[in-house]
């Protein structure tokens, strides 16, 4: 099931980038194409309290993402790099190196 989900997302990536109105940050965060229902829901929220929505979209994504435009933000945070302490984890990417097994 996870595989399926992955493939579907990958197929949609082109449409997400070129045909959807989702922001780049939303797509990067893993949002997928909103279905018709979701879309109209979003519209409804927008109509309900326009002010709130405006602030929300500005604060987390626009403000944090753009004010500090950063070249190559770290892929994973400091603590998550700790997985590279594990021997097996370290060995699991050995095939990416010339010395690893395989063809």
């Amino acid at each position, binding site marked *: 099931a996870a595989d399926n989900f992955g493939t579907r997302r990958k197929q949609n990536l082109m449409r997400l980038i*070129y045909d959807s109105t989702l922001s*780049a940050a939303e797509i990067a965060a893993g949002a997928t194409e909103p279905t018709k229902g979701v879309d109209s829901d979003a519209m409804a929220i927008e109509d309900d309290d326009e002010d709130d929505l405006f602030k929300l979209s500005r604060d987390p994504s626009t403000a944090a993402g753009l004010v500090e435009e950063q070249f*190559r933000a770290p892929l994973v945070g400091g603590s998550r790099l700790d997985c*590279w302490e594990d021997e097996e984890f370290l060995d699991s990417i050995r095939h990416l190196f010339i010395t690893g097994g395989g063809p």
Partner: protein
Amino acid sequence: MPALAKPVNGSTGSSRVLSFSGHGHLRHRLVLSILSRRPIRIDGIRSDEDQPGLLPFEVSYLRLLEKLTQGTRVEISYTGTSFLFHPGTFAGGNVTHQCSPERSVGWYLEPLLALAPFGKKDLVLTLRGITTDGRDASVDTIRTSGLPHLAMFLDKEGVELKITKRGHPPLGGGEVTFTCPSVRAIKSGFDFTNVGRVNKIRGIAHSVRVSPQLSNRLVAAARSVLNRYIPDIYIYTDVYRGEDSGKSPGYALTLLASSTSHVLHSSESSSCPPSTSTGEKPEGWTPPSPEDLGIMAARQLLEEIRRGGCVDRGWEWLVSLMLVLGGEDVGRATVAGPFEPFFIEHLRDLKAFFGTTFKIKAAPPPPSLNDDVEGGSDEGEDDGPKAPPAEEYILSCVGTGFTNTAKRTG
């Protein structure tokens, strides 16, 4: 049509003007504007913030573009929250610019890589300021990773970045000279889809205005992580003395992994304080030890290698742009996912400026993955933690056949 990149379809003659909103992607959009010769208008620059409008370093970047081009017109509104940019011709030649201290020289130089080969004359650009700040592309990252990504599209040799002086924040005092030959057209039909395997790792450790011993400690720490994989590791220590080491102390390590098919991945860690919105150093902050930094850079490099792709993270925008500018032939590149917001926005910008859309399809899993599954089956799948496999996409597009008309043939 994406929400942020809608061309203005005015009934007047200004229909070629592209409108954008906000200061994000400002540098790259200006470069795209010069390359595509389409004027742009940017509105809503920090219009709701305490410090509205363009900030000094952005104005400084606009001034730099004015120096580099002929006939560029910039009209900035009274409040600075919007401006109109009429691109001129990119001239190249000898240009020197003092960068604003809020941003490092890498902030200025990074987007210019795409412009550099299309001047009337060869470009010799000298930039002064901060050379490593932990936030923008450092000069080492640009030199070791950025330049090769540019050079592979050019027929000519001579793309170079010379770091004459280093300058750490806050005072800077560094100086770099970027040279790039001018070309008429870039290579077309580019195929950059073979990831290969990492066969060597290089690095540069530098320390300025602190004990040179610190760079050795950076190297030793990084080696302790990387030595298990391949023997071909060489990290050299770059020593700058006296005047050449700038005005502030600091140290950093840049690592670069190179594969059998010349795919590069890089990482960096530096003693620079984390960036804050005010640009001030946080209270009570002390730089991490060289040991911690060395290990951090090495682990980040492993993370980048694991992520896969043929393009080093941070240069996807450059490679995709070069594919668009290539000859009228299909160019392809494997890019690692998940895509970052910046790159997604850039793909949308490329469509807005050049009308080019990329075909994006998931790359087939590499054959080595199957070996892994076989190898893993005898010890059990859930035995230990494993690095997740790379998520890769093949981007392809037909080049627009861009030619540098300012450059005379021959």
